[in-house]
């Protein structure tokens, strides 16, 4: 069962991703800011990280830079899902180390499909209608 860490300061958002991903067979853990996310990523094995940008104490871009400079965890796939919708926000996120960038709100089916894609789980057959 792939293990996903959701890093977002909105408890509603974390709950939404959790329900969506658990229903699709993922195991889900949560962190409410980038620093808590970094602590968990350094101490528990995750297969995928879902990262918000705007959070207190450590924002998503800083988290990504920390992720990519630490040998033990730099290879982990990271999906950014953020309200920031300008091209430069997307560029900054990729420059900091995001693999994929989505603007909120994300379609839950897309979340699941990308989750599967990035953890090597079997993809859904056919296209969601």
């Amino acid at each position, binding site marked *: 069962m792939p293990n996903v860490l959701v890093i977002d300061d909105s*408890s509603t958002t974390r709950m939404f991703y959790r329900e969506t991903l658990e229903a699709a067979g993922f195991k889900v853990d949560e*962190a*409410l*800011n980038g*620093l*808590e996310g*970094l*602590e968990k990523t*350094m*101490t528990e094995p995750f297969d995928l990280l879902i990262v918000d940008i705007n959070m*207190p*104490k*450590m924002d998503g871009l800083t988290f990504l830079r*920390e992720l990519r400079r630490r040998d*033990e965890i730099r290879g982990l796939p990271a999906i950014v899902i953020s309200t920031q919708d300008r091209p430069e926000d997307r560029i900054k996120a990729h420059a900091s180390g995001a693999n994929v960038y989505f603007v909120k709100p994300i379609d839950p089916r897309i979340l699941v499909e990308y989750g599967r894609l990035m953890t090597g789980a079997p993809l859904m057959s056919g296209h969601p209608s």
Partner: protein
Amino acid sequence: MALLANRSDQPPDLTDEDFQFFADYFYRRTGIQFAANKRYFVDRRVQDRILRSGRTNFRDYFDFLRRDGAEYQSLVNAMTVNETYFYRELYQLECLVKSILPDVIKALGGGRTIRIWSMPCSTGEEPYSIAFYLLEHWRLVDDYEIEIVASDIDTEALGKAKAGRYNTRSLQHVPQITLNKYTTDEGEGMRRVVPALRDSIRFTKANLLDIHDDSAFRDFHVVFCRNMLIYFDDLSRREAGEALFASMAKGGFICLGHSESMSRISSLFELRKFPEAIVYQKPL
């Protein structure tokens, strides 16, 4: 100010929603998570706080809690295990010797002095534990001048720390061979830290939020700040983070309590993960 206690025989029940609400709140404030299997643990303690505060239900209590700093502290006290004793959180002392000090030495350059701060030191178990452990387990202990400073805001606790007398319960995790070297038997189950060791630790009164002009609290290579910041409100935690940061040498390390996290305290430090523990570092 004591309020009338709830006269009902039944402690106020927490609904499932109340429990979840409380758990979310406590997680947000402290980083401590209570899963469903901790339900009994949480309910009992929250019910006790509700009664002691003179409220009759969870919602009223929560409204009160949000406005009252003293109640928040009492609540945190109730929800966390506070007993202080020697060699508490031993993994941090192991980390000190195996991982932290080797790094500190690398950054020292030619320096031979290592400054360690135990803040808060409470009644002294922590600074003495650090001293015992270094003497027993750090093979380079004689190659460096180790300055241990131990501070607390509570002068009564400091007095006890300076006196250095402890009972067997507090010392139970310290090996006898260590006790024989660094403590003397005072009878009636009490032991006292030997004078040379007591005198080698500098005990000082300090309020962390008030020390910035005091040069006595500078250039620490290692800081132990355990189970204190959890009691502070958000703004005070940040200020405390600043004070700690300013008190540390570049590359210095700070250890928090076992269930504490810098993610609820300050953005200034860098996370370092060692095999024994997660600690935080002031950047070089």
